[in-house]
């Protein structure tokens, strides 16, 4: 994390569930701080967070198991444009403070201090 002062970063909790945690060192809960502004100087949003997670937190090379179509995160970091829309991979729910991200503006939602962002993979067993 390249946080300079506490003003520049936003502390949040990111959680993974339903098997997605296996892509993130098998840890379900991650406390982390992300930059308050993205590459373009705009407030960091969920799209930025997803890029950040792919680049920094995800150890598993199978980025396509996390982000849609494998077109976003398997490309080298510098190609990841802030303008690119991040879609959730089919079968993954993105939950912002315990609400479906579709209720909160999807990838355009601007991350607030203390937010809880939960990525859940659907289960099909029974």
């Amino acid at each position, binding site marked *: 994390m390249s946080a300079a002062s506490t003003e520049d970063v936003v502390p949040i909790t990111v959680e993974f*569930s*339903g*098997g997605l945690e296996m892509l993130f060192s098998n840890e*379900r809960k991650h406390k982390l701080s992300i930059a308050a502004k993205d590459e373009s100087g705009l407030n960091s949003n969920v799209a930025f967070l997803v890029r950040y997670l792919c680049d920094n937190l995800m150890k598993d090379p199978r980025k*396509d*198991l996390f982000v849609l179509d494998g077109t976003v995160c398997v490309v080298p970091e510098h190609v990841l444009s802030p303008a690119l829309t991040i879609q959730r*991979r*089919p*079968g*993954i*729910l993105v*939950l912002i403070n*315990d*609400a*479906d991200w*579709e*209720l909160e503006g999807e990838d355009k939602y601007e991350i607030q201090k203390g937010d809880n962002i*939960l990525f*859940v*993979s*659907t*289960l*099909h*067993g*029974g």
Partner: protein
Amino acid sequence: KVVKLWPLDKHEYRRYGRQLIMPEIGLTGQLRLKSSSVLVVGAGGLGCPAAAYLAGAGVGMIGLIDGDTVEESNLHRQILHSTERVAMPKVDSAIASLRSLNPTVKYIPYHTRLTAEIALDIFEKYDVILDCTDTPASRYLISDACVLSQKPLVSASALRTDGQLMVLNNPPLPPGHAQGGPCYRCVFPKPPPAASVVSCGDGGILGPVVGTMGVLQALETIKIIAKGIQRYSDFDSTYLQKGLPSGNSVPDPHRLSEPPSLLLFSAFSNPPFRSIRLRTRKAKCSACSAQTTVTREALKSGSLDYVQFCGAVSPVDAL
């Protein structure tokens, strides 16, 4: 119309007394349970406990559909089966246990896996559908058939130490009505990559995890039935347009469906349960919106290939 002085039989007051005296059920709720019918799709780790508590509560008719036979590896979690019934059709084994618990319920066995061709004809005989299956293909099929037949869907799933539960399509309004509950496709428009789908056989499953989810399915079903299923006729056009009850036919607030939510369970997390607010019906949902492409005809003709849609990586048994 003759009003019966004792609307239930004497033995029913005895058997259901402990739930009858609760305001959430009461005599009205018990009569609704008695006159209702519930279809449990899948007689495995979810279906066994779900059916047990539905039978216990006095649901009038319970249908069970499953094409599998009992295997020894089922028994750590599929509590209606038994060691001496290994190799028996699961549906028959389950009904034997259920009948012993409550012989006053009518049980209907379907010795088959659910297919698109037969789904609607079966679903139309029931009031609530439980998805207790274990593949993405069956989950999309069941949801589509629930939307088309206007049935509430109580859907659960489990894998390893995690479980999930949603009540979908409730109230079960026709496609295109925004006040209807979201369907499975509203929440998951596209199936997950086949490579990411793990079955209980491959990933493992802890018995009480899937058991908890199955019991909770029974609970949600009992809540829906006892409260009275909201019908299209409960909503008049004013309500549908403005989202407000009109003076003429105010929907009973006690009958209003709960807002859509997803219950997450994770046996080794703290806290283990978490409730998530879900979206409402999606304006462009391919199943429940005015722009639906999932029609009765398409479903019945078999032109919707759910296994193909979900991109099977290996031969998949759709149930």
